[in-house]
């Protein structure tokens, strides 16, 4: 129950009235009395407007709750509804609303109290751009209510935190151009097995029993003899996403300003930036949303890249008809068996949204329980030799393996301080050696931060064929 208290405004009004009337009457100056008259009328009007005054103090208990209507996906805009109740005695309600694109530092709004028609409650809707993923605090609607003219007020009321699970975005890209697959059946990929498909191998003489639609009519027109097309069967692929969650390597985030001078300077800088954004938007350029999105992208760590890469690859390959499974290389999470369809994709995204940095050590590749013939995509920042050995072990067990490097190396270097750069150079050289080692063993390494991994994979496969 919040406590209403009388503010200094009430005591001020009484003091001014008493002083003005007393002084004016004592010295015989009606003008001094009349100076205090409007304040006396306003005080009476304010007290008359209170529902429970002067019989007793306000009894309502203002509080606020926020909610979102649907599942939140990173990168989408979501409507947050804040319901304020117990506003019977409030005339001004100050409520803290979640951050919006228009006001990235958070919005504090003062709204009118409830009238009789709204039954003591109010609803405030705010559209929020969700940029993060995982368990995220969306809003905490703290509020402060005041009576007429601020004569009465409540103590600040802490709102209930709205914490929601934000699923990582799953933008579909071009499907990965996978090498020919040994197994599989009726999918979007090439296989090495003869059968019905679109990939023409050669022509053979027509024999009784061949389907007429397999006849190569152009060869017949040219040679006057029936030939039958021989093709390779199409195949679907089974992909297993192996996530390396042992570390989260992220760019350095500048510390928040300390002291009121620095905070004011930062606030002023942000205001100037907002004005620049507006000017840029008017000129048709990028605005606040684009700037904030870019700032958020520059702060992604390897865990962010892992989640986004896994979600995007899963969405793309499931959309192409493949089956996708997922596991953690530390074995601390239950693996998701291969499957397809939107429900399965939703399951993968939910699992990604709940993942954390794992404190456990790398599990030997033999214990990853990879299905025979599965194509393995290993998502890792490649920051130690253990993961390279694990990759070689997977390859040695006969799996097609693709490594996706999830380290945001450029952003880390860009945000690093001068003393950190020397250390980063050494780490980078070690990583390059590991990547070269993998490539020498025929394992393509794709860099998620560079974008267009399907193009990178096609180039890597071409390179492998050339070497052969």
């Amino acid at each position, binding site marked *: 129950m919040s406590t209403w208290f009388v*503010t*200094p*405004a009430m*005591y*001020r*009004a009484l*003091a*001014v009235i008493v002083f*003005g009337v007393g*002084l004016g009457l004592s*010295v015989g*100056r*009606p*003008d*001094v009395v*009349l*100076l*205090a*008259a*409007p*304040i006396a*009328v*306003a005080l009476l*009007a*304010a007290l008359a407007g209170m529902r429970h005054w002067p019989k007793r103090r306000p009894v309502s208990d203002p509080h606020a709750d926020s909610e979102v*209507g649907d*599942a939140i*996906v990173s990168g989408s*805009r*979501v*409507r947050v509804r804040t319901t304020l109740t117990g506003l019977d005695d409030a*005339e*001004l309600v*100050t409520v803290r609303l979640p951050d919006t694109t228009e006001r990235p*530092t958070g919005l*504090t*709004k*003062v*709204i*009118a109290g409830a009238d009789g028609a709204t039954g003591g409650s109010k609803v405030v*809707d705010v*559209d929020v751009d*969700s940029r993060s993923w995982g368990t995220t605090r969306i809003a905490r609607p703290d509020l*402060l209510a005041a009576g007429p*003219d*601020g*004569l009465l*007020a409540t103590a600040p009321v802490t709102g209930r935190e709205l914490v929601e699970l934000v699923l990582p975005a*799953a*933008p*579909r*890209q*071009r*499907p990965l151009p996978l090498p020919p697959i040994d197994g599989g059946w009726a999918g979007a990929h090439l296989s090495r097995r003869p059968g019905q498909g679109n990939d023409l191998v050669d022509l053979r003489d027509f024999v009784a029993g061949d389907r007429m639609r397999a006849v190569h009519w152009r060869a017949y027109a040219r040679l006057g003899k029936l030939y039958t097309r021989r093709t390779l069967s199409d195949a679907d692929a089974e992909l297993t996403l192996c996530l390396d969650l042992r570390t989260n390597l992220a760019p350095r985030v500048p510390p928040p300003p300390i002291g009121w001078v620095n905070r004011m300077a930062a606030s002023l800088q942000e205001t100037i930036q907002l004005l620049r954004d507006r000017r840029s938007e008017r000129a048709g350029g990028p605005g606040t949303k684009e700037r904030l999105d870019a700032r958020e992208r520059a702060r992604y760590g390897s865990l962010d890249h892992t989640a986004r890469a896994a979600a995007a690859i899963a*969405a793309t390959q499931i*959309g192409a008809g493949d089956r996708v499974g997922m596991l953690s290389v530390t074995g601390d999470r239950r693996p998701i068996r291969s499957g397809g369809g*939107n429900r399965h*994709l*939703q399951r993968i*995204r939910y699992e990604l949204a709940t993942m954390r940095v794992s404190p456990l050590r790398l599990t030997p590749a033999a214990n990853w329980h990879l299905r025979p013939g599965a194509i393995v995509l290993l998502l890792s920042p490649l920051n130690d030799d253990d993961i390279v050995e694990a990759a070689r072990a997977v390859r040695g067990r006969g799996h097609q393996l693709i490594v996706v490097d999830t380290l945001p190396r450029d952003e880390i270097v860009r945000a690093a301080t001068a003393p950190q750069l020397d250390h980063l150079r050494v780490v980078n050289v070690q990583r390059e050696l590991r990547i070269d080692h993998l490539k020498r063993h025929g394992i393509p390494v794709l860099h998620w931060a560079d974008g267009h991994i399907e193009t990178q994979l096609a180039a890597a496969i071409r390179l492998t064929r050339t070497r052969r």
Partner: protein
Amino acid sequence: MSRPGEPVRGTAGAPPAADPAGAERAAAAARTVPGWGLRGALGLACGLLVVLTVVTGQDLAAVSMATAVLVATTVYTVAAPGGPAAALLLIGVMGVHLAFGGPVLDVRVALLAVLMLAVHQLAGICAAVPVRAQVTLQALRPVAIRFAIAAGAGVLALVLVAVLS
């Protein structure tokens, strides 16, 4: 099957809910003034109050002293409207008016009375409104109505007293 780049079906965020019936009401509620604007208005009202109070003074030393004290109180009032400075300012204005001005009921006194009310109400609101907040104009309507009633009543009383005396 959706094309590359399209959001996955059934996983998009909640679309903004349309509310055509309340669009007009929402537009009216969307009109806001910043919290620092109210502080500016409070400062302006205090400044005018100080000027109108000391303008009748004859003794330069007394006027300077009164101005210095009232300006200092004004600054304190704008910086901390929830503190005692606003009460000190209003009482100080009445004291200085008593010392400098004669028992004349003129337009200046009417303006002083209205400005004192404005300072009192603005200080009360500013104490409850953070500087960075956005205040909907709808929330200020009851205060404005009370201001109009009280100012009108005060001016009417002043006119009546002037006529009767």
